[in-house]
């Protein structure tokens, strides 16, 4: 019986997450119909996630075969949704546990420290939980100690990173009501800091006339489809028809084959997003409900697009220059002996746009341009440097995209490689986190508004 509960029930990530949702819904005293549909949708979301991963993996395998044959190096397409969906096979339970307890740690830290942020970008919480699970497992940790340490790391990031950005976020939004909770923070922080050095705040991007025609890229499905079609077709021309038609497509014309593989990839991303949406639909509102009760004056830390409306032109400028920097970086990566990171429209759109908004807030036009380019370099080099510390997961043709995943993953990975004992590793990680909290509290600027916390 114990064995059945521990291994079969809790060892099946889908059911484990469903159990969390069930407990959350019961705790909110929801009606029976809501409890049943909420629990089912959460479990189903996880199942859909796995189905999407299968579709993507097939398409990615074809892509790497083509890329390898054409250039003799590994081409990697960073995509959080995809790497997390693939990782659920081996790390599903650990991811779910770290995610749940990490959210609890977030509420606890928001309650006891001056950083009253509640991180509401559910999909990013899940991705970071997955990254931490992978790195800690690779470091040789397992079971309860791993979940506890992972939850502390995740919960700390969920309050410290919004806090780090808050002085700039305040400048963008003109208030202290919201924070940015998105794991591209290091890119935005760098953008705002460099914008301050090189730019001029008075010359805002918002005085320029920018065509609105790139707005369609905010539709993720369209952006992914376009990127993948261009990418597959260009690579297939380099691979050549002979190799593709004899080795991969079973005689189907190589261009038609490439087009269909590209669309399969986009369809897979769409499936995964649908799964993630269902999965989080119950968990995040419950999390916010609990947080609002426990943490007075809790500030929501929101997804990056929350700052887009404050500087519409900076969004477009930021995307274009981030993407340009990604293309330039792609040329340089092999010179450093790193994998080729193919710049994706989606990560460059969302993080590039946010970096543009942050850069504009401190340094106007020049700040937005330089800041976004720095972000573009970050999200090209960090994913490449992250690959070696991901263990077996580093051999996939995809990886985590945003800058914080890179920074956190590389820092934890290098630390664990230097230290042979997991105890020393745990102690040092905790000490570093404590130091960051202390530095944060020491350097914290008092908000200008009257704040009764």
């Amino acid at each position, binding site marked *: 019986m114990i064995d059945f509960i521990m291994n079969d029930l809790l060892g099946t990530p889908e059911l484990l997450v469903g159990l969390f949702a069930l407990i959350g819904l019961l705790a909110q005293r929801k009606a029976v119909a809501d409890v049943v549909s909420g629990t089912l949708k959460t479990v189903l979301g996880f199942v859909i996630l796995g189905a999407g991963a299968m579709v993507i993996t097939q398409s990615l395998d074809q892509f790497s075969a083509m890329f390898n044959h054409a250039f003799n190096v590994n081409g990697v397409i960073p995509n959080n949704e995809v790497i997390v969906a693939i990782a659920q096979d081996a790390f599903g339970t650990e991811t779910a546990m770290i995610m749940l307890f990490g959210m609890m740690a977030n509420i606890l830290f928001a309650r006891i420290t001056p950083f009253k942020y509640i991180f*509401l*970008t*559910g*999909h990013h919480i899940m991705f970071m939980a997955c990254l931490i699970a992978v790195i800690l497992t690779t470091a040789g940790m397992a079971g309860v100690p791993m979940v506890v340490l992972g939850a502390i790391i995740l919960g700390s990031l969920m309050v410290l990173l919004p806090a780090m950005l808050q002085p700039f976020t305040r400048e963008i939004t003109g208030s202290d*009501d*919201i924070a940015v909770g*998105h794991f591209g923070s290091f890119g935005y922080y760098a953008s705002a800091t460099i914008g301050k050095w090189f730019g001029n705040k008075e010359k805002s991007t918002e005085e320029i006339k920018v065509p*609105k025609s790139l*707005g*369609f890229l*905010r*539709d*993720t*499905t*369209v952006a992914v489809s376009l990127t993948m079609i261009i990418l597959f077709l260009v690579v297939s021309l380099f691979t050549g028809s002979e190799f593709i038609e004899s080795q991969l497509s079973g005689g189907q014309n190589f261009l038609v084959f490439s087009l269909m593989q590209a669309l399969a990839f986009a369809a897979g991303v*769409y499936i995964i*997003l*649908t799964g*993630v*949406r269902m999965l*989080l*639909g119950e968990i*995040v*509102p419950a999390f*916010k409900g609990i947080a609002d009760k426990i943490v007075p004056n809790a500030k*929501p830390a*929101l*997804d*990056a*697009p*929350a700052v*887009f*409306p404050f500087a*519409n032109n900076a969004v477009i400028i930021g995307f274009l220059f981030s993407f340009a920097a990604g293309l330039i970086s792609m040329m340089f990566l092999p010179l450093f002996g790193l994998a080729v990171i193919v710049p994706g429209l989606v990560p460059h759109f969302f993080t590039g746009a946010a970096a543009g908004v942050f850069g504009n807030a401190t340094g106007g036009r020049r700040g937005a341009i330089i800041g976004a380019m720095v972000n573009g370099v970050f999200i090209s080099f960090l994913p490449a440097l992250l690959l070696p510390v991901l263990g077996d997961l580093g051999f996939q043709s995809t990886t985590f995209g945003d800058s914080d995943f890179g920074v956190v993953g590389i820092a934890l990975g290098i630390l664990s490689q230097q230290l042979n004992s997991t105890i020393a590793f745990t102690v040092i990680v905790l000490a570093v986190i404590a130091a960051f909290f202390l530095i944060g509290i020491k350097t914290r600027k008092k908000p200008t508004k009257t704040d009764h916390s």
Partner: protein
Amino acid sequence: MKKVLVVCGNGLGSSMIVEMNAKQILKDLDKQADVSHTDLTTAKTENADVYIGSEEIVSNLRDGSRNVVGLKNLLDKNELREVLNQNV
């Protein structure tokens, strides 16, 4: 029961926050409505009495037959309250 659909590019982050805000506001206004969130692509195939999102996103949904409301600031609860008051 009226159906309100909140739309954003990904259907993951901002639309979910706006959905939570909308549910809270409807409760305060003592109104009943079914509120859900999704991405732009899916929104085109879903029927709702009112579609809400940031202007540059939901402008893609305007075809004359849908009731589409673009918000200037997604997170401004007062603006959202106005919209819900008029449309639900």
